[in-house]
């Protein structure tokens, strides 16, 4: 890679080599999750905050014992929250659980079928969390005005969906992602919708700063191989973006010279 392509992703003042963020849901077990994490090269991994199981399985391993907060940046999410209050509570619990950790992924959902974000509650929660000192990476719709508003509130990264969570439908509205990127001063990370490697490349070729995915790796027939594919897809998409693609033409343009033919 040339120097330009090695340029780092900076979120809340911390530099990351990898532009891929992965989830920790839907894996067969923690070991498979850890192996996928290593294969993906990701340095940031999302986790959910849930009630402990009491009485039963109290000796089962804890996620944090397998995926070490010393080695990886954990990104606690507010998945499952349908209002701002629950999301704020979840972030405060996560901060306590992770000993003062400030980086969180805010997502406030609006509908169980589409898991589409509830944008009004997301805005409210973002304001509260930023005032409370959190570094907020925020999942939102692909509306350019809302993305800008979330940046103005003080979110450290804005993460529009490419398609509904877990759908694997790819980047359904690349034009909106482009519009968001045009005005952004914080990292824009496509969160949700990626189904396969080319989807991740498309997001990066649009100029996104990173991609966050869970199901595309966890539900692949071979999650480790897909994790490796995603690592390359994100890198190649980034390099292609930096390289600057050729213009699209309606007709052909010969690659071999016309001059000098002997026939």
């Amino acid at each position, binding site marked *: 890679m040339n120097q330009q392509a090695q340029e780092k992703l900076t979120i809340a003042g911390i530099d990351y080599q990898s532009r891929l963020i992965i989830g920790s849901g*839907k894996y067969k077990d923690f070991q498979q*999750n850890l192996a996928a994490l290593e294969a993906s090269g990701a340095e940031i991994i999302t*986790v959910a905050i849930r*009630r*402990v199981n009491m009485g039963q399985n109290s000796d089962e391993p804890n996620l944090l014992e397998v995926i070490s907060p010393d080695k990886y940046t954990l990104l606690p999410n507010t998945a499952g929250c349908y209002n701002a209050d629950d999301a704020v509570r979840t972030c405060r619990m996560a901060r306590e659980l992770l000993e003062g950790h400030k980086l969180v992924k805010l997502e406030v959902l609006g509908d169980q079928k589409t898991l589409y974000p509830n944008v009004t509650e997301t805005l409210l929660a973002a304001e509260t969390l930023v005032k409370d000192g959190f570094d907020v990476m925020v999942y939102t719709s692909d509306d350019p005005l809302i993305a800008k508003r979330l940046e103005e509130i003080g979110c450290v990264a804005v993460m529009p969906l490419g398609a509904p969570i877990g759908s694997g439908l790819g980047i359904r509205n690349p034009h909106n992602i482009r519009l968001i990127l045009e005005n952004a001063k914080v990292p824009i990370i496509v969160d949700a919708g990626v189904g396969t490697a080319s989807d991740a490349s498309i997001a990066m070729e649009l100029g996104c700063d990173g991609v966050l995915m869970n199901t595309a790796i966890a539900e692949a027939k071979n999650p480790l191989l897909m994790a490796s594919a995603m690592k390359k897809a994100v890198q190649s998409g980034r390099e292609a973006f930096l390289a600057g693609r050729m213009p699209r033409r309606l007709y052909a343009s010969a690659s071999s010279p016309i001059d000098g033919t002997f026939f």
Partner: protein
Amino acid sequence: MNIVVNGKPQALEAQTNLQQLLENLQLGQGRIAIELNGEIVPRSLFQQTILQNDDSLEIVQAIGGG
């Protein structure tokens, strides 16, 4: 007396502190966070937090999620 832990009723002796409850629940060493009646209790205060009748606790951990 009775308290509620993660939505389930639990009988408890009077004057039990939070640390003792966690040990009873085999959660004494775990990486957890606790809300008592909606307020987070820092780990440093577990020992001195005496539970009261009708207290409601939420005990959470990190699990897999996207």
